[in-house]
């Protein structure tokens, strides 16, 4: 456990070095969030009655989504890991007395967290001071906030565990480009990054909420905006934990299987 914590710390402080990139990212995310909110405003002005959540909750959802973008975006997979697998440098990693799965898991987690730490504060600060419906409101209750924090971490865990599956699968396919892009576009759509899940029709949404993808950003963001509370929130949390363990279990199985029949590419 200690060595994985060390990996985590190492990667975390490495991630904190890229401040200029983070600044550029913050500016970009402001622009995206602004456009996104104006798009929802247009729909809201046209037909407020059909809106599935309050407009303010939608704005909070969008701001939180942009602030914690790096935690949940599936396309932020680590190129270094894919390179290791493709060019054969994986052999060096295998020489180390550590478990590949745990090592990569802690490093991905650290990467995402460090990027988010750099980016979220400026966005949250500015969003909090924007005028009423467009800005970021306070959460409904202290309890909701605690629940938000907890599900936020569970959500990142599910996201990383899913990415780990993709890494593990690319042991078998050699060229990772294909499964990567398919996995990414699936996550984008099914996790509520394209449009929040409440905007889907009732039946589709009920189904999507059971999938692991809904346990990523959907749960924490909706708990923060107050759209998900009470028993529904408890159920969502339970599902999150279930998927977290299920995905990690699957990843470990694949890991064990891949290690048995691994071939090293090139030299």
């Amino acid at each position, binding site marked *: 456990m200690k060595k994985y914590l060390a990996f985590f710390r190492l990667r975390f402080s490495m991630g904190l070095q890229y401040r200029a990139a983070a600044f*550029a990212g913050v500016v970009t995310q402001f622009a995206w969030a602004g456009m996104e909110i*104006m798009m929802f405003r*247009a729909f809201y002005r046209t037909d407020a009655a059909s809106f599935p959540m309050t407009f303010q909750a939608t704005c909070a959802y969008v701001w939180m989504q942009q602030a914690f973008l790096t935690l949940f975006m599936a396309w932020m997979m680590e190129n270094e890991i894919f390179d290791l697998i493709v060019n054969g440098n994986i052999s060096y990693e295998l020489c180390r007395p550590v478990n590949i799965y745990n090592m990569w898991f802690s490093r991905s987690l650290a990467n995402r967290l460090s990027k988010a730490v750099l980016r979220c504060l400026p966005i949250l600060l500015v969003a909090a001071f924007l005028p009423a419906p467009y800005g970021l409101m306070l959460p409904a209750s202290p309890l909701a906030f605690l629940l938000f924090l907890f599900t936020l971490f569970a959500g990142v865990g599910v996201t990383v565990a899913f990415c780990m599956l993709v890494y593990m699968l690319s042991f078998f396919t050699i060229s990772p480009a*294909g499964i990567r*892009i*398919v996995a990414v576009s699936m996550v984008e759509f099914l996790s509520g990054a394209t449009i929040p899940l409440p905007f889907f029709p009732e039946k589709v949404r009920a189904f999507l909420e059971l999938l692991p993808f809904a346990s990523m950003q959907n749960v924490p963001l909706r708990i923060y905006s107050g759209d998900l509370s009470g028993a529904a929130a408890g159920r969502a949390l339970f599902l999150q934990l279930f998927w977290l363990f299920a995905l990690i279990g699957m990843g470990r199985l694949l890991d064990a299987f891949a290690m048995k029949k691994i071939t090293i590419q090139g030299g």
Partner: protein
Amino acid sequence: MRLYGKFFVMHLKSLLEYKTSFFLTCIGQFLVSFNVFLGMYFMFQRFSNVEGFTYNEVLLCFGITLMEFSLAESVARGFDTFDNMIKQGEFDRVLVRPRHEILLVLGSRIEFSRIGRIMQAVVMFIYGFAVSGVRWTPAKVMAVLFMLIGGTVVFSGLFLIYASICFFTIEGLEFMNVFTDGAREYGKYPVSIYGKRILQICTFVIPYALIQYYPFLFLLDRGKPWYCLLPLAACLFIIPCFLLWKLGVRHYTSSGS
């Protein structure tokens, strides 16, 4: 132009060495923009219209914008990796060759995997046409043609600006994505829904509205007849972009290595 043709064939040949990966990337590209369409579809399951535009009308708008962007992208995406070219000092090599530097930069990389996106654009374009319910007249067909020309020019201009800025910053600016990918993403709806201020910016600063919103109104019989000529006016946008590029080339100092 013949040289560009040669570059084209060269890249195509090198690519066909890796067929599976190429097809998978194409499918992926297709899926990514298909997501956008699905998002729109589900939004309109809930809302019947947005600011007076129905689903079918928005689809036509989306198809045209996506087509404009994809055309520009397949021509000018070579500028996308231009910061690498500058960082590694490869631009020196370009400067000593007896051809125009823009042609050589564009020829340095042609992305065929964008074919996935182009296919998506073509499908959306045709589908948008089929369901839009617009009564087509020769003038309207001309207007669509002008939109495609104007749109390709404007988006190419934006890619050119992105590359020109690299002369000064060395690093590519992530922020520029807002103007290119962002415009594709949010250009699926007519610009006017984002409010008056945005419409003004998109008319006078970066002429998105000239290639999308105004001629689109003309297609729907809601605009004045001269709106169909606006995309051609938008082509003027390439002039300042080109001047910026010239300025950049003059300012260029090799980063060595």
